[in-house]
């Protein structure tokens, strides 16, 4: 891809990537900004090697995710990379930093209780702002299947909230 096209690419993906990072660094805005900046600058350097046949979102998501894991691994050098990845959503303090209301906090806690695939889908779709098309490209499912899965996940979420 021509680097001249990068600004357009940036505008399409900045919000999504920032949100992805934001939720994984406990709602720390400054850190999310730093990581997002680094991720996009890395993407810019690699943009001429980017294969347009591959989904833009998943390519950028991979760069951001790898950058985040490298950052967290530096912060916790004794911890396994896989463990870092698995615990990205387990921070307890991010709700406070994100200035959520009580109900909102309750909702997000309920999302955590969903099966991991469903929780991941709801986070990507609603919290991080991915489109069904981008999610489909990233995880290899069809859009239709994802819509059905999201609907079922929300139904399950309602049940969890009702019972709390």
């Amino acid at each position, binding site marked *: 891809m021509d680097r001249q096209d990068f600004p357009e690419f940036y505008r399409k993906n900045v*919000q999504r990537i920032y949100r992805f990072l934001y939720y994984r660094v406990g709602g720390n805005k400054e850190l999310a900004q730093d990581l997002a900046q680094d991720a996009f*600058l890395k993407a810019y350097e690699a943009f001429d090697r980017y294969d347009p046949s591959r989904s833009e979102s998943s390519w950028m998501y991979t760069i951001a995710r790898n950058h985040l894991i490298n950052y967290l691994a530096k912060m916790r050098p004794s911890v396994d990379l896989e463990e870092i990845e698995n615990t990205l959503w387990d921070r307890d303090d991010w709700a406070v930093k994100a200035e959520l209301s009580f109900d909102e906090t309750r909702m997000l806690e309920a999302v955590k209780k969903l099966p991991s695939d469903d929780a991941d889908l709801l986070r990507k779709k609603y919290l991080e702002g991915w489109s069904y098309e981008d999610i489909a490209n990233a995880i290899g499912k069809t859009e239709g299947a994802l819509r059905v899965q999201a609907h079922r996940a929300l139904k399950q979420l309602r049940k969890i909230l009702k019972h709390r």
Partner: protein
Amino acid sequence: MVEWILGRKLNKIGQRSNPDRKFVHALEKKILGRMATPSRMARLLRVATGSIASTIMLCAGTGAYAYTSDVVLPTHPLYSVRQAIEKTEDVLAFTPEKKADVRLRHARRRLHERFLLEIHERPVTVEQVDQFVKTMDGVMEANGKLNEEQRKKYDDLAEKLESTYVSSFANERDTAKSPQEQKKSDSLMESQEAAFQQHVDRLEGERKEKYQGVLRRLEQRRALREGRSAVEENSHTEKE
């Protein structure tokens, strides 16, 4: 219906985690700045390429100057550059006719250099004559490899060059002024004629005879002049 509301609430939470507009614009500006500025490697490459290109152009420019300028004469610092270029030209002349052509051109340049030295009243050294002789030997060698028709053409051109060069011996003598200058000039001329004699010895037939005759006449004139000078010196001494 309720699921839809839940989705909207989650959306609202998500939007609260949008990046600041200020941050988004600042990062975009940074990216655009990087687009305008080449990468460090590209900058280094650009500097290196520029340096190499400048060096090549400087060398090419220097070479062109050394090759064509009338200022570059024997004893000039760039004269060796001219000689190197001429050597290269000779090597790159692959056909016999091309080689004869190139060597004749070099001989013409030696002649031209002699004229320029005379114009600027600078001494024509024996080395300069040697160079002409060497170049003419090269011309003869190249001419020897041509067919009969071509050889005649190039031999005629070589002969014209030789005649002009020899006539410059006489011209130089004529421009001398005082007896002391004349004596100095004669001594130098004798050396030059000896150097030219080496070339004449390698010639054949009418051409050899012609230059032998010229050199003999020059020697006689010099002897005559030396005799006259000796008489003038003696009369001067007597007067004192």
